[in-house]
């Protein structure tokens, strides 16, 4: 597909917004989970594995944002 320079700029902005907003969303999700994981770990170190796993689950949202950004940049 041929895109003119102004469209290329808009695609880049769209990709940036996708990654940025997804990152903010993931961060918002992680802050409570991270706090809870640290709290549980402070009492019992055995919660390290579970805590880490739970904390990175919202990270998938950031990956979705990245995928959308890559599609925008390389498919169009």
């Amino acid at each position, binding site marked *: 597909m041929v895109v003119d320079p102004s469209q290329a700029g808009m695609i880049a902005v769209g990709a940036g917004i996708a990654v940025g907003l997804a990152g903010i969303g993931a961060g*918002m999700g992680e802050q409570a989970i991270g706090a*809870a994981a640290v*709290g*549980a770990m*402070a*009492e019992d170190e055995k919660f390290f594995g579970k805590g880490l796993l739970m904390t990175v689950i919202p990270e998938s949202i950031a990956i979705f944002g990245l995928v959308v950004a890559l599609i925008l940049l390389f498919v169009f």
Partner: protein
Amino acid sequence: MGNTVKYAYIVARVRAMKSKLIPKEMYPKFLNMEIPEITRFIGESEYKNDVEELGKKYSGTDLFEHALNQNLALTYRKLIEVSQNEANLLITEYLRSWDIWNIKTIIRGKFSGAKEEEILEDLVSAGQLGYRDLLEIIKVGTVEGVIAALEGTPYYPALEGFKGNLAEIENNLDRTYYSNIIKAAEDTGNKLFLKFLRTEIDLKNLKMLFRMKRAGMERDEITKLLIPGGMELKANDLARLSSLTFPEFVRALEEYSYWEAIADISNEFTSLINIETRLDKYGLVYASRISYYYPLSVLPILDYILSKKIEVDNLRMIVRGKETTLPEEIIKAHLVM
């Protein structure tokens, strides 16, 4: 979002602490053990450090008693230290009940001429009055001196004007505690905390009503001892219940949700212990239930505070009961589980 993050850390920590409490299935096993076996079990549990630390100074049931009290105080202090903002304020206010407990214990001790060590045995420095403050207060010889030593604390207004009536100042202390804590809760606007407190006041008033009714006290004397601010038992309910005879009072209780706690023993209201244990259990189950309804709030913390206190009370009851060779059924009747 704000509240979720605010309570996430402390609630996760408290839940992890709660998982380390002694499971209720253990209590019947304790009843079959001897005191040294129970002390050994406790010495290998969460109470390990306290038993080891105090083992050089005390032995037998005294060691047990001191280790339980020290652990309870340290656990509650830890909650204050690891919490922040609103949670910290509410926990601090709630744990002031231990200041009230300690002041009452010291005054009672001084009133009856108990030794300093004997008074010290029953103190739990989990409130705002630290262990050293309490030691200083104990050294004062008279009740009046103790009251003077408390000048400048929030408890002094309840104590000043003491004219030798112990019940009156104890009642004043309770009322001051609840009016202060309700004010603090209203200032923060935390409705869940208020709901929990108001239910606690109801249960306390119910216990008081049962005791007073059984003792055949007059309405005016009873109403003076009740604490205002309950959830279901409002001022007019308390006034009505106070004026009824014991059988009428029991029938009138059927209107309230607390009846479910004691309904199954309604034919045997001869034992106050059974009633009080049931009401304590109701409070424990209620705290646990609402803490699951609102998992990221102050309620799981209050649920833990209550559960920890009941664990210590149960252990103390078992050991003291065994020491005085009480029959197993009587010890069991006192256990909240």
